[in-house]
């Protein structure tokens, strides 16, 4: 599925249909090809070309494009259109995404599918328009109010972005949920060869969508329930759904993890830097691989936990002050040391910089291991041949086998878990 690491196959059909496209435009066109019915947006750098592409193409196709008066309006237009069962996309960049927090919470609460693209830029505040990954927390944890989770897809190349757009619509509609695509300024502004492997997910019967109560009882799409008992029941149903997503929709890709003593964990643009850093690190004798989450939520925690058990250390690289690193630590739970390297405000670490950090980390872990005897490499750590993780999201070069593992803590205790079970989706 991802093309970022594809190598030999790629060269083989070298002259096959590939076009050079800007990330923003490729995402927009992918949405169109995926059957997007309506796009609502508001200009902001570095995602303006996405909106502009939609402004040109959607009316041509007789579909809906509205430049809203604000991001608030855009997300609420999406809410309205989404409530009718239409396939809807919205895009923005960091400050604009912040303005959508309430709307996203409403859509999560009233189970309205929509795909929201965030082409992240440096923050906080107005910050800059340069690439960043500092909205990880926002997308993965706490954007709007209330108990909800949003699937978050993080492409590392423009081709992968194209794939993930179609997948995002699928997820949104299968689970009736807003879905984030978390890209950054680099991905939005860059041009890369894109294979025109567009895909149109099938439409499902929407027995909940608003079409007018013609010959059937009225339908209501809402998130309100003043009776705590009812609202809790609704929340339990939502949580059951989120758990199902967490169980079924994890995606990640690995590279050179078979014999790795260290892994870099990185996503998106940072993962590209890491990929080069892995190559350079290997050439300098560091046994390092790359673990690249493609879904940031659900986070590939079991897979990473299993991997961590046989590593000497994990280095997390982000274009942020350290956000995903918390999820890495939650997954690793002390199984090996976790280090972090990040750049902020639009800066991107260079591969050499990452190799340097890796080196010093290696040195410190060495000392630590001697001192605390914390980190024996599991003797049975066995390399298995590349294979899929069930969702086709395997990078072509390099692969770390994943076997089902027991979920790590927390245990969901007593009543909560029981209630979760009681709720039928």
């Amino acid at each position, binding site marked *: 599925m991802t093309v970022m690491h594809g190598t030999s196959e790629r060269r083989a059909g070298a002259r096959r249909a590939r076009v050079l496209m800007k990330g923003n435009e490729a995402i927009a066109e992918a949405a169109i090809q995926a059957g997007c019915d309506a796009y609502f947006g508001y200009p902001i750098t570095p995602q303006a070309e996405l909106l502009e592409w939609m402004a040109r193409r959607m*009316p041509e196709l007789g579909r809906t494009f509205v430049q809203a008066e604000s991001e608030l309006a*855009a997300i609420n237009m999406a809410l*309205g259109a989404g409530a009718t069962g239409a396939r809807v996309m919205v895009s923005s960049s960091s400050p604009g995404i912040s303005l959508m927090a309430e709307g996203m919470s409403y859509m999560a609460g009233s189970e309205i599918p929509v795909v929201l693209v965030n082409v992240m830029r440096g923050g906080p505040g107005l910050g800059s328009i340069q690439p960043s990954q500092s909205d990880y927390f926002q997308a993965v944890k706490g954007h709007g109010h209330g108990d909800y989770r949003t699937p978050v897809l993080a492409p590392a190349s423009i081709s992968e972005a194209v794939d993930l757009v179609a997948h995002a619509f699928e997820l949104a509609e299968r689970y009736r949920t807003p879905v984030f695509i978390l890209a950054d300024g680099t991905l939005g502004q860059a041009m890369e060869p894109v294979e025109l492997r567009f895909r149109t997910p099938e439409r499902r019967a929407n027995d909940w969508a608003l079409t*007018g109560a013609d010959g059937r009882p009225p339908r209501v*799409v809402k998130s309100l329930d003043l009776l705590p008992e009812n609202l809790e029941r609704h929340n339990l149903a939502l949580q059951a759904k989120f758990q199902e997503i967490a169980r079924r929709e994890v995606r990640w890709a690995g590279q050179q993890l078979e014999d790795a003593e260290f892994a870099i964990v990185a996503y998106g643009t940072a993962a590209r830097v890491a990929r080069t850093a892995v190559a350079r690190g290997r050439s300098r004798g560091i046994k390092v691989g790359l673990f690249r989450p493609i879904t940031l939520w659900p986070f590939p925690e079991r897979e990473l936990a299993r991997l961590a058990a046989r590593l000497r250390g994990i280095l997390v690289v982000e274009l942020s002050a350290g956000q995903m690193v918390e999820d890495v630590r939650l997954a690793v739970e002390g199984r090996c040391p976790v280090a972090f390297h990040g750049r902020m405000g639009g800066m991107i670490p260079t591969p050499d910089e990452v190799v340097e950090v890796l080196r010093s980390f290696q040195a410190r872990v060495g000392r630590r291991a001697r001192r605390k005897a914390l980190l024996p490499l599991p003797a049975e750590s066995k390399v298995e041949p590349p294979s899929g993780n069930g969702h086709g999201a395997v990078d072509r070069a390099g692969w770390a086998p994943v076997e089902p593992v027991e979920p790590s803590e927390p245990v969901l205790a007593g009543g909560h878990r029981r209630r979760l079970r009681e709720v039928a989706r």
Partner: protein
Amino acid sequence: MSVATPPRAPASPRVIYQQPELLSETSTRYCPGCGHGIIHRLIAEVLGELGLGPRTIAVAPVGCAVFAYDYLLLDFVEAPHGRAPAVATGIRRVRPDNFVLMYQGDGDLAAIGTAEIVHAAARGERITGIFVNNGIYGMTGGQMAPTTLLGQRTTSSPTGREASLAGYPIRITEMLAQLPGTAYAARGTIIDPSSVGKTKAMIKRACQVQLEGTGFALVEILSNCPVGWGLTAQQSMDHIRAEVIPAYPLGVIIDRGKRAVAPTSGGEG
């Protein structure tokens, strides 16, 4: 619940007035004498008479009318506070053949939702809006709204609204009527049987305007909030007559008729 069949009348007598079909049997959560109930009924009557019930997708506000979907038997989506016009726009654009209705309070429409209503009107969205102006935030306990009269006491203007601190009341329907996208704008009230009738006619016209496809249509209705105003229901109606109507004159503010600036191309795309 009592049934609306007259006792011992085997051959059914002619019904002059009965509960409209589009209204549910549920008792509303509104306070005694609250105008929201009257206005709901008018909407149910008009949509029923125009046969629009099965085509309608309605947008509920956040305000006392947030439960409108419990009372009006229509497909409904609940908008975040103030965003009904944006939500309705989203529906409008992807469902060109549906009838799109939205219902908003004065806090919802004239405060937090100012940008959304202005731009829905500016875009000339084919939406019919019902704007219930009771000069107060009913649902949250009677705070000042943008439409609150000068001098009026509310829980957030305890000594009466003072312009120097809290600004002036807004006649937002007049503002919206200025926009070429607004095909129809009118202001009615519900203080007595006759004004109820006139308001119903305005609502009907506002619905027809949508069917004519000439632009945005809005009916502002001066309503009451007996609880928030600290008055009995009837006193609140008297207060509207004496104080509110002079500040917010009744009547059709604009009706561009069929000559309204029609969309330059066919549809909503």
